[in-house]
């Protein structure tokens, strides 16, 4: 029997997080807080649901990608839904979130769990996890953890390449101006 045929998956797939008539839905809030497109946020929620399935069925601790983790974090803030409906009635078990305690041992442990999670995903759903949502280990453990919360009313964000290009352009213009004047 595939994961899609299981009763657990049917319950997970049928579950909607948060009030359905809310002006700001769970999906919209997830997209807003992470500056994702609505379609990407929906895709991440779908992967979060798959992750929850694996958490119950894999038989060992599982580790999400950063994007899925963001969905999990947000779901935990919908605490009534999470603890009073989702865990008891949908998953049939408590699903606790455990951040790393830090250090190289933990670092290795979380790598192994991430690798096991990807393997369990492939075994359960018959396909590799989507790369855009489940990136490689380097991205997951060396790049994504540097994400921070920024209020765009107070800051201007530029991709690093654009900032470097603008800096180089300013240097060239300044140098030329100095030569001309």
């Amino acid at each position, binding site marked *: 029997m595939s994961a899609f045929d299981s009763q657990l998956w049917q319950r997970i797939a049928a579950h909607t997080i948060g009030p359905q008539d809310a002006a700001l839905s769970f999906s919209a809030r997830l997209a807003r807080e992470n500056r994702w497109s609505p379609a990407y946020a929906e895709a991440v929620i779908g992967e979060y649901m798959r992750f929850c399935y694996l958490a119950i069925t894999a038989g060992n601790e599982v580790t999400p990608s950063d994007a899925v983790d963001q969905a999990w974090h947000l779901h935990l803030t919908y605490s009534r839904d999470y603890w009073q409906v989702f865990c008891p009635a949908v998953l049939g*078990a408590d699903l606790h979130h455990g951040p790393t*305690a830090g250090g190289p041992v*933990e670092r290795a*442990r979380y790598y192994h769990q991430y690798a096991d999670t990807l393997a369990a995903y492939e075994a359960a759903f018959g396909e590799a996890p989507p790369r855009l949502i489940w990136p490689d*280990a380097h991205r*997951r*453990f*060396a790049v994504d953890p540097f994400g921070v919360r920024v209020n765009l009313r107070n800051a201007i964000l530029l991709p690093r390449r654009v900032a470097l290009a603008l800096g180089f352009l300013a240097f060239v213009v300044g140098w030329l101006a100095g030569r001309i004047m």
Partner: protein
Amino acid sequence: MQLFSSWTGSDFLLFYMVLLATCGAASWFIAHRLRPQGRFGESHEPEDIALLAGGSGRLADSVLADLFARGALALALGAKGKLAVAQATVPASPAGRTLLAVREPFDPDEANRMLALHTTRVVARLRREGLLMRPEDHARLRWLAIAPFIVLILIGLYRERAGSALGEPTGYLVILLVVTALLAVVRFVRVDPRTAAGIAAVNGLRRQSARLRRAPQPGEAGMAVALFGTTVLVGTPWEPVHAMRHPNSSEGGTSSDSGGSSSDSGSGCGGGGCGGCGG
């Protein structure tokens, strides 16, 4: 009547450059179409795939990664950039056992040399299985692949001699001839020794094993490196094997320890021993 006698030097140079580009395309086309088909088998041993995907160096890297990921090898204490045997009793392939029998620390290049005999055996096996070309087929394909360049060089030499005889400057043409000769040498050296079946086997496995490129499990590290090179080890606990091969690589440096969270499902742990996961 002399060929190209009515052409100016610049006309001929332009013509030559167009022919050079055409020769590059023709060389690729010849190597693609005339490559022996081979036999589509089921050779999925990591060492076979490593040699097919990246040559002897890749085979050594694959064996090292496999042994390192399974704890048989570790970083040598007091010998920077070298590995030493940590557990000689770990089950290993014949190539792996060769390295596990070494008492002194060694680096990847030394491992490559120590596995030379094994590499020769793998090459022979892949030729028997129809995944690598036989030497005579490979040599024939190499000569065919550079045949367009040879013809072009002959045409260019003819024009250069004729131009020199008339006292015309031929410096740019000589430069183009040298470039053509260099391209021919590079092409000759780099003609892929695999049969069409060998290339298809590697490409097929790469498609099937996309997950290994992201986060291989310890038992998959050897195959992951075989298919994709040591770059797949960046971000894994086995990154030192990649760092040895690419000491100046800008990738890596996964010192962050803030990147994890995990689930602790009560039903998944069994025995009720999963408390204290924090949150």
